[in-house]
């Protein structure tokens, strides 16, 4: 009541139109969105945009520098690097998306459930989280994946398991904040069912954190998957995968540096863009619903 306020827009509608959105997007976010968009398009229809087979070998034209035929040169087996980067988009997008989406679902169910229900649910969930956090994550992932025979889907499955613990803890904290607010008590007084309070009231109010988690998880999963592929664990031999391209083309770093640098750049660019966008969404919408007073 005491502090002076800077009142917000008092119109009844959400300020949500393409035009107003475009005006309010900073350049860095615009670029990041552009990068993500291009990579998504390449993942979907890349083979028609760059119709060169990523697996066709030209053993007479090995480790060639960039030229008019091969924009980024060729690799150790004479395969077109550009085509392999384009073909690698799919696995670079799908894997991390599955991992981060599973993190989103699991962490919102378990995190909000632990926070709102409390008691045994909370104790069991959080001790599981503590246990997972105490494990040396990536090391165990490497061991499990190599014991399990490797492969892209195997790596995704294991990373799904080892990705959620941090998210659960964050979501639980945010949900606890909400739980103590009067609007939740008001809902209880009205007799609104527990599941509705958890997923219709608390969930939307922690959604900004969920989106931020999604972005961070995506970036981390991309790096982890590429790391596994670099070690030869996260991909089938010969499959166009950015991580394995890195290790395959290490040997030709001086004849065609783009063989290794291009996938490295692609990994960094995608991870960075997703992170930037996630951060931006969080900053922009975390305050939504809270009040300027």
């Amino acid at each position: 009541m005491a502090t002076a306020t800077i009142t917000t827009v008092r119109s009844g509608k959400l300020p949500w139109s393409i035009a107003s959105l475009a005006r309010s997007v900073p350049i860095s976010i615009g670029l990041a969105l552009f990068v993500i968009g291009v990579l998504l398009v390449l993942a979907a229809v890349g083979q028609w945009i760059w119709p060169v087979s990523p697996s066709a070998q030209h053993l007479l034209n090995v480790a060639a520098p960039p030229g008019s035929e091969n924009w980024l040169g060729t690799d150790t087996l004479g395969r077109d690097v550009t085509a392999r980067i384009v073909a690698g988009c799919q696995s670079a997008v799908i894997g991390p998306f599955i991992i981060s989406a599973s993190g989103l679902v699991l962490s919102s169910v378990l995190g909000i459930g632990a926070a709102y229900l409390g008691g045994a649910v909370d104790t069991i969930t959080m001790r599981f989280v503590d246990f997972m956090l105490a494990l040396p994550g990536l090391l165990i992932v490497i061991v499990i994946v190599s014991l399990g025979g490797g492969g892209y889907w195997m790596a995704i499955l294991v990373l799904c398991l080892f990705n959620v613990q941090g998210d659960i803890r964050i979501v639980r904290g945010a949900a606890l904040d909400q739980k103590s607010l009067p609007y939740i008590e008001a809902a209880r007084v009205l007799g609104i069912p527990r599941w509705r309070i958890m997923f219709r009231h608390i969930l939307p109010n922690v959604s900004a954190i969920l989106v931020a988690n999604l972005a961070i998880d995506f970036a981390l999963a991309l790096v982890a998957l590429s790391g596994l592929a670099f070690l030869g664990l996260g991909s089938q031999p010969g499959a166009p995968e950015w991580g394995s391209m890195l290790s395959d083309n290490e040997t030709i770093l001086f004849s065609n540096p783009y063989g290794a640098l291009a996938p490295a750049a692609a990994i960094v660019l995608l991870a960075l863009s997703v992170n930037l966008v996630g951060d931006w969404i969080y900053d922009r919408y975390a305050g939504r619903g809270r009040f300027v007073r």
Partner: protein
Amino acid sequence: MYRIDNLLEIRDLDVHYAGRGASHRILTGVTLEVRPGETVGIVGESGSGKSILAKTVMRLLPPGVEIGGGSVRYKGIELQSLGEREMRRYRGAQLTLMFQDPFTMLSPLLRCGFHITEGLRAGSGRLSRRAAWREAVARLAELGIKDPDVAYRYPFQLSGGMRQRVALAAALARDPELLIADEPSTALDVTTQAEILNLLQTIQRSRRMSVVLITHDLRVAFTICDRVYVLYAGAVLEVGSSAELDSEPLHPYTLGLLQSEPPVDRRLQVLRVIQGNVASPDEVVGKCRFSPRCRWVQPECLAIDPPLALIDGRQSACVRLNDIRSDLRRERALIEQRAAPLAIRTEEAIVSVVELTKIFPGRRGRSVTAVDKVSLSVGRGESVGLVGESGSGKTTIARCLVGLEKPSLGAIRIGGYNVFHESERSIDPRVRRIAQMVFQDPYSSLDPRQTVSAALSECLRLFGVRRSAINDRVAELLTQVGLPPEYAHRLPTTLSGGERQRVAIARALTSEPKVLVCDEPLSALDVSVQAQVLTLFRELRARLNLSYLFITHDLAVVRQIVERVYVLYRGQVVEEGPVDQVLDAPRHEYTKRLIASIPGGARGHDLNQEVRQIRG
């Protein structure tokens, strides 16, 4: 233009917020003077810019807020022209600012004494550590803290009133000549509030300081201020001495504020309210700021933004003053009216609480008894008040009634049902249809992501209203609480505090309850809006034959709305009876203290007169 005898002089001050792309006015053309030894009040509702005014003087503006023009002179020196280093020599030593919240103002990691010695040693005296500590203890004693041990304690070990004293001692450490106190008593209990105000007055007189008291409460300002500035939407609308403003307000807004604050010594038949919401300065450019809410508005009010004009040695910004002066006088006289007290009804009890006890377990077996064998009843259609200060257990009782807490002992029956059955964790669902609750803070009691209609229809579905009937019922509920049905599609963030509280009331009415448990439903609202919502409560009661259990610390409010009252002190009912009897002839010591500490009201005016006589 500039008068040498003014300690602080603000001329034509413009302050605005210039953030990303957006620009908002905060203060426009504010002129204010403080003479040596004078106590000046600045009264305004939220958004009037009163806190920003204080921060402008101290040059502690938040980022993005800039001074657009005008001057702020202290002893003739333009504060804006000083460098940051020079300004620091003024802050604390010459002029000082005391904030509202005693709970966050002091660092919890530092002992109370340190907060004071820090200021003492920063002065020119170069006191030794030990001498400074002795001085700090003496300063606390000056403010009524005689126990020297308090200096060694940490702020969180003290009560709100004690903290506010420590904060005051820290603010006064370097013997400033001007103290700006921003809502120093708002966050405190009524009795503590009176103590702090008295203290401010004593200190001001013994030190011959000047004090600027910022408050939203006209009566608080009247009790200790010589002159009062009424601020609205970033500009001064009226200036006058406390007595003049009180007896004859010369601006419709001042009158409205006076009318909106219900008197404590009598019930009013009709509460006059200021319509609408507090405007932001951007909404009222180029016309009289108060015109959208004014009863006497005419085209001439919209032509210009009227400046303050001198009338009989006083200042008012009303252009139609000559035409409406007699109206204002007549309206002012209405406040003195007295309506017959509400008749006590004797109907069967709809809520009956017998020996309710709630004990909160603490660490190491130290438990807290929040409510101790409280028995009370609310009859069908009756309105009952529950008054007490924070910590008296009144909120715990409310929470037990609606099932948010389970009582440790005792029985609660609502509408013939036991609220809690022995073995069950949650309450009897039938009780929910009979008793609903309105919460204190409308800013957080609505889900910020849910539109009004979503919130209401969620509850309506729960209470078995047919899908096809829901939209009509939502519109009906909104109309009932005085909101246009179009508000259904709004999000709570786009509503003002009063509108939110109306939505919260509508939500509580979805189950068509017989009883509303209202936990301080007005205290988070602006003064002018409080009266609106209070009126709504009275109307709803008449229309729906509701019973209220009205929980509040505000005795003036309780007088306007209930027939019977229970006074709660440390978890126990110390007095009960018809509201007029309890408030006019209190028997218990605590009730007497509670009533004596109300600023304004009948007794407050007497105090005011006395003070003025003493000063001569």
